[in-house]
């Protein structure tokens, strides 16, 4: 559940709803607004702080970090997820790593051609 909250906050920052330096809702406020437990929101803020998306100062609340570097990271996470899926399906189908790599290579090649057309 905390992952969903992290995702939502990152989106808000990514689309510019929350700007760098903006004060964001206190954990308790957000928990009440989302009707989820405080400890879940705490966990999300802690992870976001660790990732450098927000800055939490004890007793002062949280603000969006001055240079939250999100977008590449969001895509990175997405990519890592898909690569893992590929590896899993590959092992289910008994396709070895070289074959998987060459298929990805081919797919990338096709995409390149499409973009050039």
């Amino acid at each position, binding site marked *: *559940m*905390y992952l969903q909250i992290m995702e939502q906050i990152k989106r808000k920052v990514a689309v510019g709803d929350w700007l760098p330096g903006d004060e964001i809702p206190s954990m*308790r*406020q957000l*928990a*009440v607004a989302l*009707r*989820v*437990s*405080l*400890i*879940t929101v*705490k*966990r999300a803020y802690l992870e976001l702080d660790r990732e450098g998306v927000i800055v939490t100062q004890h007793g002062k609340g949280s603000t969006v970090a001055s240079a939250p570097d999100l977008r590449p990271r969001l895509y990175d996470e997405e990519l890592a997820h898909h690569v893992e899926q590929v590896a*899993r399906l590959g*092992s289910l189908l008994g396709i070895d790593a070289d074959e998987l790599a060459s298929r990805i290579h081919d797919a990338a090649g096709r995409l390149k051609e499409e973009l050039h057309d």
Partner: protein
Amino acid sequence: MTDLAVHLDGVSKSYPHFKLDDIQVKLETGGILGFIGANGAGKSTTIRILMGLVRQDGGAVEVLGHRMPDDQAAAKRDIGFASEDLRLYKTATVRWHMEFVRSIYPGWDPSYAELLLRRFDLRPEHKIKGLSHGQRVKAELLLVLARRPRLLVLDEPTTGLDPVARQEVLGELMEVLADERRTIFFSSQNTLDVEQISDQISFIDRGRIVDSGDKESFLERWRRVRLDVPPGVVLPSLPGTVSAVGSGRLSVVTTSRFDPAMTSAYQSAGATVHAVDTMTLEEIFVANVMSKREGNVA
């Protein structure tokens, strides 16, 4: 000193056919604890002891700094209690009950009570006997909430409610927690409700607390690992393993102490890890109770 709103320490109570044994519960001020157990697990007995309605055979009970049951009159000024045992007067209206509670408790907040009437979609002129189960539950909660007690003790507040009413009730409980001096202790059979709004969780089964902790670490610790175990490979027995079931090559290990190192341990033993799945609170509860009943150590 931590500020505990509820502290049950080694509480026991024996009945001819049921026994509560060494109940430990700690709930900090400002927190919300979900008390999960099957029917007959001891939830209501624990709550009655907590409220001073039943005297424990052994152990100490402290609620909002008051020893229970001896100091219950003072404690109850600040506790709002709702349970299925409480009955409203069938032939009286919702409004009559509101005036009645208001005449007893000086903390009654009339404007909050009116707000709750609207939020819970209740009509004050309705008599209790004409209300549905859900409306009756919401009316009881209104009577308790509008007093703005420092501690809410709710015995299965969402049981029997439809999904909309459940969300109304859960939302209202979260509103209470916007004030960090207020605390909620609620029991439930519905793990979804508990998963949504609780900070602390205690599992009770057969009169004993089988596990307790903060919700996030609960969800973090428990995992289901799906493995391919080739013939001849024996899985190492790792600490925290709650159950390992398998047919043929496929095996599913449930663990209460997941660590990424586990997957490498299985892999170096010759097994292939297909997936590491998170578990819902419901799955954790069932796995936990089953393993304790079978006498395993989780």
